[in-house]
């Protein structure tokens, strides 16, 4: 018997809300401040990139992939180009694969920077945000020097790269690595052993490894649950099979472990970049690509490890037109976001924003 008659409070978090990282709408049913149920409403940023891509020729689509995960354009470029290369069986020169690896690892650092900044800000630590943007800016400078753009890079082409790296760029990347290594402890000083940070993140949104796989988590959220799943290791692409790096995993599967995993990924990314810079081979940056790109009829699925998780492309070519017959993206943010209602159930409103932050979504990619 309930002594008092209580109502649930339905609160509409988003689509305009400072912590939903874009136009995400979460309809929360609350008992006091406790979340009883949640419905995630997406699609506010749906631009029909999959449909559009079926009407753009193969090279033009690179530009569309920029606009999916717009804080991590280079990895989207890479995923798409490699899928088409796989479909056409094009051999990419080793130098191009090395540079692609460097670019996508720089991109991973930049994306994690943005994640850490906004995630910490959601939990109230505003200084971390600016520290991270300070370093992210340096990466954007490097990208600008390489391809002229700071956000939507279009930094790759089918068969290789649009152009070779500028002279002195490799040295600047090394200098950045040295600098960035000294900056990681700054973030850790502010957060890792901070009592409040730990209280806010530990044992929140816990998910076991098996559950995480079943519900479709990939990337750092999955590794935070202790599953050593990383496309870079499991199905190496670009030049990852030539480098030595570890896949950090967590144990508890809570927000804190996901944080630790991503922080360690900073270091592993630096390790990969340094190896790639040190062993950067000479040679062309574009493989043997026909002037008119028209892959033979067939379909393929190819996945890479984007900063958010497994970014897959399923592309069908009819072998006749110069546009893909079917272009499908398996967006990691979309699949990871699916776990949100399960993760926040029973937690408080304040944990909802921490959860959204910890699964690191970009709405451009969720809605496409």
């Amino acid at each position, binding site marked *: 018997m309930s002594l008092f008659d209580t109502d649930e409070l339905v609160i509409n978090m988003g689509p305009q809300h400072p912590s939903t990282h874009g136009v995400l709408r979460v309809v929360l049913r609350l008992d006091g401040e406790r979340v009883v149920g949640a419905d995630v409403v997406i699609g506010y940023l749906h631009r*029909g990139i999959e449909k559009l891509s*079926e009407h753009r020729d193969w090279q033009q689509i690179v530009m569309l992939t920029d606009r999916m995960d717009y804080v991590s354009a280079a990895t989207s470029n890479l995923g798409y180009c490699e899928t088409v290369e796989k479909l056409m069986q094009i051999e990419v020169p080793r130098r191009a694969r090395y540079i692609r690896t460097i670019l996508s690892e720089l991109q991973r650092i930049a994306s994690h920077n943005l994640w850490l900044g906004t995630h910490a800000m959601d939990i109230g630590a505003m200084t971390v945000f600016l520290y991270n943007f300070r370093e992210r800016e340096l990466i954007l400078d490097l990208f600008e020097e390489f391809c002229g753009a700071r956000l939507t890079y279009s930094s790759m082409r089918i068969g290789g790269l649009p152009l070779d790296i500028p002279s002195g760029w490799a040295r600047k990347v090394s200098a950045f690595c040295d600098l960035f290594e000294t900056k990681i402890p700054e973030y850790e000083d502010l957060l890792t052993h901070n009592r409040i940070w730990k209280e806010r993140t530990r044992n929140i949104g816990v998910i076991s490894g098996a559950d995480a*796989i*079943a519900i479709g988590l990939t990337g750092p959220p999955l590794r935070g649950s202790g599953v050593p799943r990383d496309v870079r290791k499991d199905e190496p692409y670009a030049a990852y099979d030539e480098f030595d790096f570890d896949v950090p995993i967590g144990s508890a599967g809570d927000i804190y472990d996901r944080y630790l995993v991503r922080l360690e990924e900073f270091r592993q990314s630096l390790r990969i970049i340094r190896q790639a810079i040190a062993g950067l081979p000479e040679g062309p940056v574009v493989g043997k690509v026909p002037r008119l790109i028209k892959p033979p009829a067939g379909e393929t*699925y190819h996945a890479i490890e984007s900063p958010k998780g497994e970014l897959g492309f*399923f592309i069908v070519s009819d072998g006749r037109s110069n546009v893909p017959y079917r272009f499908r993206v*398996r967006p990691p943010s979309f*699949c990871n976001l699916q776990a949100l209602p399960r993760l926040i159930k029973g937690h408080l409103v304040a944990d909802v924003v921490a959860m959204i932050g910890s699964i690191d979504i970009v709405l451009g990619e969720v809605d496409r």
Partner: protein
Amino acid sequence: MGVNPAPPAGPPDPPPPADLSVPGFISPLQSALPDAVTQVSYWVGDWTMIVATNRLLDVMRHLRTAQEASFDACCDVTATDWPPRAERFDVSYALFSTRHRHRVRVKVRVADSQAVPSVTSVWPSANWLEREVFDMFGIPFDGHPDLRRILMPDEWQGHPQRKDYPLEGPGEMLLENPMDWLRLRYEP
């Protein structure tokens, strides 16, 4: 824009070359569930199994639980529209095993408005993916817990990823017969 005599009627789904060894999980599946797998195909490194729609759930459960398969992750569910074909949709599932680190693609062919059994009971991750396929192609999923539109507004008419749906949206371009749009694209 490509100018072709007629819209294609389906993917080639080429059979595997004779000298290629078939992955270990396929033949146990075929012996456990005879006639479920109608075709095995291989293209640029990807293995594909085409499965009878009514056997899909059995196949999926087997792939999920069998030791040598143990596909514990359903990475992607999507569809391709081949309008000239009677069973116009290919619904394809991209599966991955975190244990064996292998992949397979499972496809079923369904006609318009024919329901596909939902695999959400096997992999909860298929929930939103199937909703997206429903939203984009109008393929209903039997046994799905929450089959609503996901990316398009709830009151949206039509299913954008179908080939007979114009890129510019339904608007004034919506022709009397949706197949006219296809003809516009594939015939000069």
